[in-house]
């Protein structure tokens, strides 16, 4: 059965590209543009992996990360923060909140992201 990935990203173009690429790679993709949609989605079904942007229109990605990690249902789902923020402080904060990987969007192409996801889901 296809693995499920939830993409939490408010830039619709980037969201569309990531969703298309991961679809081509055989994943079942759900998308959310803000925290409300994200938690609606998480309550409906637990994904195998979450791709999380940090700058979102309602609450920031750190808040979402914290809430996911505090909830017993979702706390073991691997989360990749995929953001264009890269300050030492952002990375440390995300790690402290229990992120699995921190990737800077502009430093990767989507096939490289897919490669990383494949490795994480194999573990």
């Amino acid at each position: 059965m296809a693995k499920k990935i939830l993409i939490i990203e408010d830039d619709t173009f980037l969201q569309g590209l990531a969703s298309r690429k991961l679809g081509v790679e055989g994943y079942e993709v759900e998308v959310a543009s803000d925290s409300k949609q994200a938690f609606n989605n998480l309550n409906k079904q637990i994904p195998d992996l979450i791709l999380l942007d940090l700058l979102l229109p309602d609450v920031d990605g750190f808040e979402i990360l914290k809430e996911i990690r505090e909830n017993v249902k979702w706390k073991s789902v691997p989360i990749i923060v995929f953001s264009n923020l890269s300050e030492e402080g952002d990375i440390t904060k995300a790690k402290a909140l229990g992120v699995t990987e921190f990737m800077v969007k502009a430093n990767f192409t989507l096939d490289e992201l897919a490669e990383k996801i494949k490795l994480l889901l194999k573990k």
Partner: protein
Amino acid sequence: MNENEKLKKMIELKSDLISISAHQLRTSLSAMKWTFKMLIDKDVGDINPEQEGMLKKSLESSERMVKLVNEMISINHAEDISFKYNFDDIQIRALIEDVLLDFSEESYKKGVKLVFEKPKTKLSLVHIDDEKIRVVIQNLIENSIKYSEKGDKVFISNNQKDNFIEISVKDTGIGIPQNDQEKIFGKFFRASNAKKKEQVGSGLGLYTIKGIVEKHGGKIWFKSNNKGTTFYFTVPLSK
């Protein structure tokens, strides 16, 4: 607000502006990079060889821009922290080993070997801001790797002399042309052969690290010919 505070505010404002623009640039560049790569990989349908060639050039070009933005961010960060110095007494060897570890993947990918020539005896502690001196060592090693070829070696050493420790980074790379040697620490300056080899570079790296070394009361200099370059810098021992 006195003059000093005004200046500090302005620098903060400049730094914020750079951070915000860098983030925006990265977002647009991500969109371009991802699109070009998906088209090249034929994720969206077939393309002909001419289109593929054009897309590959576009991808390379956007990747060069990403490198430039990344460099801008790291220089901005180095300038940002250049106002706050926190001196501590530390063992320089541990710091060098830590930086070398950070470069292990990059040097492996490029096929350049990093060799740390450890001193035979234990050296005295140095009185430095380790975050700033880390930037200096990183910059010198990064340059050495950049201008070396596959199979080359980069030698890093540290030696105690009188009341300071001298650190050197030696490569067998392209060297700095005689005509450019005087200007190499200048702001925005890039050597003519460096520009030819690596199209991307701000010309701010050596300028920034010279400022850091001098703030520690140290010196930075180099010896270079067409067989390679060795950079040296000194940091004071703790009292």
